[in-house]
């Protein structure tokens, strides 16, 4: 069941642009993915034919927009296999989803001395909200270390997990290392200690099928734009029982049942957490992205990407001195590397001359860079629409970098 990559590439207009007169090679999918035409058309359709606010009007367009918006919620529910659509909260992205849990759950439930457990490979968005909470609530932040392959040290996790642990907030797949963490096992262990679990699925959502009931996580966060959908929309999944007990995050329209100056009663789930006019077009676009991804299927996506990972891992060894950062046994097609003597930003600028887009810098994971003792790394993050021929072009470009920096 090989993917017909050339046909699939036709679905993504942005793959067909030129950079420096050369066909673009887009290897920055961990930063954001390209959007298939069906997503653009779904958003355009809303703006061209039924622009209106949701949950407000009784007129034709508003009803149509509301149906499309809520329809997308249903698609997300099925996509994650959540029990109920009301467990799907639309946010601006993973960062806002994590902050929602930190502010709404953390601020009201955590006490001084309570522990929040994260890992050394978290994105800054799963570090900083907890540090801010620590400042305010006096809770304690503990960090699970990883080994030099970029795999979490499970025995350390077991030691750090205690009765004091109230929340385990853990990244499913690392954006800078590509490591797939054994979240299911960790969730089971954390539940055994009475902790809640938030899964940061920002990088996982475009590469692996996610079943929140099977995982049994309490919260799960992801962004639409890393799932071939638009920017500006994300999802927080939460178990209804927990979400019902949590106070609202933002106050405003749509999240209320009634308002007087004396008292306001809040709306039910999921609206309690969706204050203000939501990103209607983006939510509709996200729904279309989910349809698109499911039409290809995660079995095929995974098989294709594993092929690219193996090919890329071998091919990059042709570049003298290149060292891969992140060599976990279980990983996705993220190839982070350093070239001794050449700074990542110089690599990024030079390969850009060849029409190749990679990410260079600390990838919003400075602790990961500190672990490996490097200020920055270069990262090629691939998706199923990439090809082995594109990997060859990266290798050629890196050999040219070596010519500039012998």
């Amino acid at each position: 069941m090989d993917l017909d990559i050339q046909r699939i590439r036709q679905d993504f207009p942005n793959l067909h642009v030129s950079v420096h007169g050369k066909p673009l090679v887009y290897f920055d999918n961990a930063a954001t993915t390209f959007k298939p035409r069906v997503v653009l058309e779904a958003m355009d359709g809303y703006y061209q034919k039924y622009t209106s606010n949701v949950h407000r009007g009784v007129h034709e367009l508003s009803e149509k927009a509301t149906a499309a918006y809520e329809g997308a919620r249903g698609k997300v529910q099925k996509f994650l296999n959540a029990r109920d659509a009301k467990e799907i909260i639309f946010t601006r992205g993973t960062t806002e989803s994590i902050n929602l849990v930190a502010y709404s759950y953390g601020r009201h439930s955590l006490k001084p001395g309570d522990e929040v457990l994260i890992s050394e490979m978290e994105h800054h968005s799963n570090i900083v909200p907890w540090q801010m909470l620590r400042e305010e609530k006096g809770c304690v932040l503990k960090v699970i270390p990883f080994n030099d392959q970029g795999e979490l040290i499970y025995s350390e996790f077991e030691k750090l997990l205690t009765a004091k642990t109230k929340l385990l907030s853990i990244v499913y797949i690392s954006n800078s290392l590509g490591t797939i963490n054994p979240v299911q096992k960790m969730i089971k262990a954390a539940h055994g200690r009475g902790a809640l679990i938030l899964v940061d699925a920002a990088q996982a959502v475009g590469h692996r099928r996610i079943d929140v009931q099977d995982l049994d996580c309490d919260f799960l966060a992801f962004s639409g734009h890393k799932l071939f959908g638009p920017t500006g929309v994300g999802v927080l999944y939460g178990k209804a029982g927990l979400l019902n007990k949590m106070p609202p995050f933002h106050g405003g329209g749509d999240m209320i049942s009634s308002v007087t100056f004396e008292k306001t009663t809040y709306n039910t789930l999921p609206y309690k957490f969706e204050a203000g006019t939501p990103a209607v077009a983006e939510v509709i676009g996200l729904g279309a992205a989910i349809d698109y991804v499911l039409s290809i299927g995660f079995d095929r996506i995974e098989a294709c990407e594993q092929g690219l990972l193996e090919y890329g891992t071998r091919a990059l060894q042709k570049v003298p001195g290149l060292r891969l950062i992140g060599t976990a046994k279980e990983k996705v097609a993220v190839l982070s590397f350093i070239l001794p003597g050449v700074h990542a930003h110089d690599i990024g600028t030079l390969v850009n001359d060849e029409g190749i887009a990679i990410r260079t810098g600390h990838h919003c994971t400075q602790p990961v860079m500190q672990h490996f003792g490097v200020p920055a790394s270069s990262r090629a993050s691939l998706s199923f629409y990439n090809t082995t021929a594109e990997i060859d072009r990266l290798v050629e470009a890196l050999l040219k970098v070596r010519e500039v920096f012998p």
Partner: protein
Amino acid sequence: MSHDSRSELYQQVIIEHNKNPKNFRKIPSPTHEAEGYNPLCGDHLHIYLHVKEPGGVIEDVSFEGDGCAISKASASLMTASLKGKTRQETEVLFDQFHRLIKGELRPDKDPNVLGKLSVFSGIWHFPARVKCASLCWHTMKGALEKVKTVTTE
């Protein structure tokens, strides 16, 4: 219009100064020093100066740190061009270098005293890299003004 970094940015002078930077050392008892940091790319520099008063002549200037080729070469070329300059001359250079990297000063047309520093004239075509070249200059200025830490953000 695209610009080729190999011909416009990574010229031989820059590659050479990156490889063998001038004044890459610490001054034992500097009269002025500051740390510069570019949080975007992690470039990190320390600038040391020995200024002789009265007169305010820079007798010695050096740097240490870690960064990309552009930031390292820029610091190397800066230290080489500042030695023996007065504060006033330094300010003129700072101003001209700034206009150069923003594309506002054309070294082949506009009068200037940049000398070798004009090797950075193409950098304004690479907006993400302008800060790499300017970090050392801001840090040097901060040091002279007795600011301890300078960031480019």
